[in-house]
Structure formats: C-alpha cells, structure tokens
C-alpha cells in the first residue's frame, strides 16, 4: 500500500455517487497510509502522508442516507489457535487387555514355605466403564499362577490313595533339590481405578480365582540320578479370593496382592494362606 505511486480515489467517487453528491476525485501521490472505515452510518477514508510530505493528511466521509443499500462485511469467526479443546469425558465403555504382573512373596501363614512367586495377567479381556470423573471400573477374565517352594530339607509328598499332600524331607545326600506347589487359576478381577492427576492412577480391587489345576513337583539328584516327581490330583480349593492394590504411572505399576484363602482343601494339605505378594506390573 505504501509503495503505491498513485492512488486514484475511485472509491471516493463511488462513495460520493452512492451518497448522490457530486463526484470527488483526489489524486494522492504515494500515500503512506490509507484508512478506510465503514460503519453502519457511513464510510470514511483517511489518507496520511504522501510522497515528500509525511505530514499530508486527507480525509473524506460519506454518511449513508435512508435510501442507501449498505453491503456489510461478514462476521469474523475467530479461531483461537492455542485454546484447549474442552474434553468431554462422557461415561463410556471400552474393552482392553491389561495388567501383566510378576511378583515375589513377602510371607505366608505357613512357616515351611521358603518363598512364593506370583505372575499373571489381570484382564486377558476386560470391560471398562469410564465415568465422567476419571474413574474406571473394570471386570474381566485373566490368568494367575502362584508358586510356593519349601524350605530345605522339606519337600512335598502326596499319598496317592487319599490325595493328601504332606511334608517330608529329602533323602540323605541329595543335590539340586526343589519342591514347589503350583496353582494355576483363571481369575475374574473386579477393579476400580482412580486418577491421581497426570499419569498417576491408583488401582484397587479384588479377584475371584478359579483354581483350575494344582500340582506339586519335587526335584532332586542323588549321585548321578535325577528324580523329578510330580503329584497331580491335588485337592486345592477350587474358588479362592484375592485383594490387590496398585500404584500406576503411565501404565507402569507396583502392586501388592493378598491371598487370604488356603490353597488346599481342609484336610488335604498344609495350611498355606494369608500370602502377601509385592511386584511390578505393566499396562495397568
């Protein structure tokens, strides 16, 4: 605009014509600034500065008459480039796989258990219900395995006639010995997740475990002979319950799980219950 060498005020002419007044032609050489202001009552043109004369000023205005047709500009629809989009957290359902975990035992009620080990997946498939306030309730089906090993020199033995599991000791001079009770379960966790802000979440819940199989495996070597004895047909409790809690950050979590139920049915094995497990989890 400033580089214009000549401005012919045709617009002024048009404006003047629209106002039914005589033509006005003004020639301004290389104006510095041209300001056109339209209002509902009229239009004005202001020119500031021209070639070799920065102090030059020219203004012209026309008032609309009642017979004028005024073409107005459209509204300015403002776009805020950085305005955050409001997230509408409408309650909704989702399906997902989550909570792969692995942990070690902190202790059980049974003194002869040396350590325990626990791994699994909370939801091989689960349904989540997301509230509008950041909570998630979920129910699903998963897998869980618990393993209990005995302190030396104790080992599991089973009377195959009665399927009663007892504790014995290894024969003398054995090497590479281990004796482990393994319980596999399909689990049905019901979980509650609460956002703590940012990527932090707390997860609380309980799980019903359907202990589909259990076995005791006792392994040892005497001289060059390896003994690997597996006992099946163990009378484990078919249904047990666990409670758990986890603190999660961006899907990585530490969890604590408590299993109050006895692994064996009453009278079919030692009382292994009140097991505490602490471990880590991903995708939780």
């Amino acid at each position, binding site marked *: 605009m400033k580089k214009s060498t000549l401005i012919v005020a045709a617009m002024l002419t048009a404006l003047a014509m629209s106002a039914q007044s005589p033509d006005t032609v003004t020639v301004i050489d290389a104006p510095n600034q041209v300001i056109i202001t339209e209002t509902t009552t009229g239009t004005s043109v202001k020119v500031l500065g021209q070639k070799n004369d920065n102090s030059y000023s020219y203004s012209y205005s026309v008032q609309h008459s009642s017979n004028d047709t005024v073409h107005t500009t459209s509204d300015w629809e*403002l776009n805020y480039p*950085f305005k955050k989009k409001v997230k509408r957290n409408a309650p909704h359902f989702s399906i997902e796989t989550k909570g792969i975990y692995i942990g070690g035992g902190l202790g059980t009620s049974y003194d002869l258990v040396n350590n325990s080990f626990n791994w699994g997946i909370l939801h091989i498939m689960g349904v989540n219900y997301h509230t509008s306030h950041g909570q998630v309730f979920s129910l699903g089906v998963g897998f869980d395995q618990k393993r209990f090993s005995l302190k030396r020199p104790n080992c599991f033995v089973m009377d195959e006639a009665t399927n009663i599991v007892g504790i014995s000791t290894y024969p003398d001079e054995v090497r590479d010995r281990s004796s482990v009770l393994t319980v596999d379960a399909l689990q049905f966790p019901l979980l509650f997740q609460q956002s703590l802000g940012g990527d932090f979440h707390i997860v609380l819940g309980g799980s019903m475990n359907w202990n589909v199989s259990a076995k005791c495996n006792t392994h040892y070597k005497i001289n060059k002979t390896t003994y690997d004895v597996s006992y099946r047909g163990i009378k484990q409790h078919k249904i047990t319950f666990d409670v758990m809690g986890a603190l999660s950050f961006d899907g990585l979590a530490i969890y604590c799980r408590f299993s109050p139920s006895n692994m064996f049915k009453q009278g079919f094995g030692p009382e292994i219950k009140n097991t505490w497990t602490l471990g880590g989890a991903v995708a939780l």
Partner: protein
Amino acid sequence: MKRVTIIILASLLTTMAAMAQKGLNINRLFDGRYKKAVGATEIIVTGSQASEIGLTVYHSVSVTDKAQAEIIEHLVVKDGSQAIDKEVEYRNGQLYYGFYTMQTRKHNNRYIFFLNQNLARKSPKNVVTLIYMEGEASAEKIKKLIRK
C-alpha cells in the same frame, strides 16, 4: 511443589510476554489481572508451540465484563493509531474488529487483533477478545490462523 512450579512458570511466561508488548498501551492489560478474573480467559504461549506457527509470543485475553471490554477497546484504538497498517471495522459506532500491524521489534513483526463478538450479526456472543502476536509470521498468515 507442582503448584509452586506452575506459578513460577506462569509468572515467567507473563513477564516474557509482557516484555514483548513493551511500549504498547495494551501492555497494562497483560499484568496478570485476568488470570483469576471471573469470565476472563488469558492464554500465553511462547517457545516451541508458538514457533510452530511462526510466532515468538502469543498472548490473548477474552473478557465478558463490559467495563473491561471498553478499557480494552480504548487501549487498542490508542495503539492502533500508531499502527503501520490496519484493518478495522466499526459497527454501531463501536470497534467490531481491528487487525493492526505495529512497528517491528527486534526484526519481529507485531500484531494486535481485537474482536468484539457482541457486535456480530449472526450469533453475537458476550466476548471481547484481544490478541497480541509477535514473530516472523506475515499478516496474511496470522489472519488465516485466527479466522475460521
């Protein structure tokens, strides 16, 4: 700790943005008065987010309070008189919108945009918006950016 960090960052951003508007009448509007004002929204963007669209500073204030709106309009018109280029529209004797190109500062273009949506014809809203932008972006680019 998180709250303290946010306050410090917000203060730094405000200071940086306020310095950017130094010498303008609208500068006094960016003293933090709208941060906790009811019905007001203030957005300050600097750094990588702003540079993605060719700006070093983006500072906007939207108010619904009529008295505040009048103050903003008054200061914008005052700064607008110093603009090297401007595009304005008045409706009912009031400034409806104004896009002002100010003198460059440290080789950065500077723009002031004002919009009084109370004066919109289709769907008026009780919002008056002021945006100060500074950066290498051209006026055309800025207009495209802020117009739907």
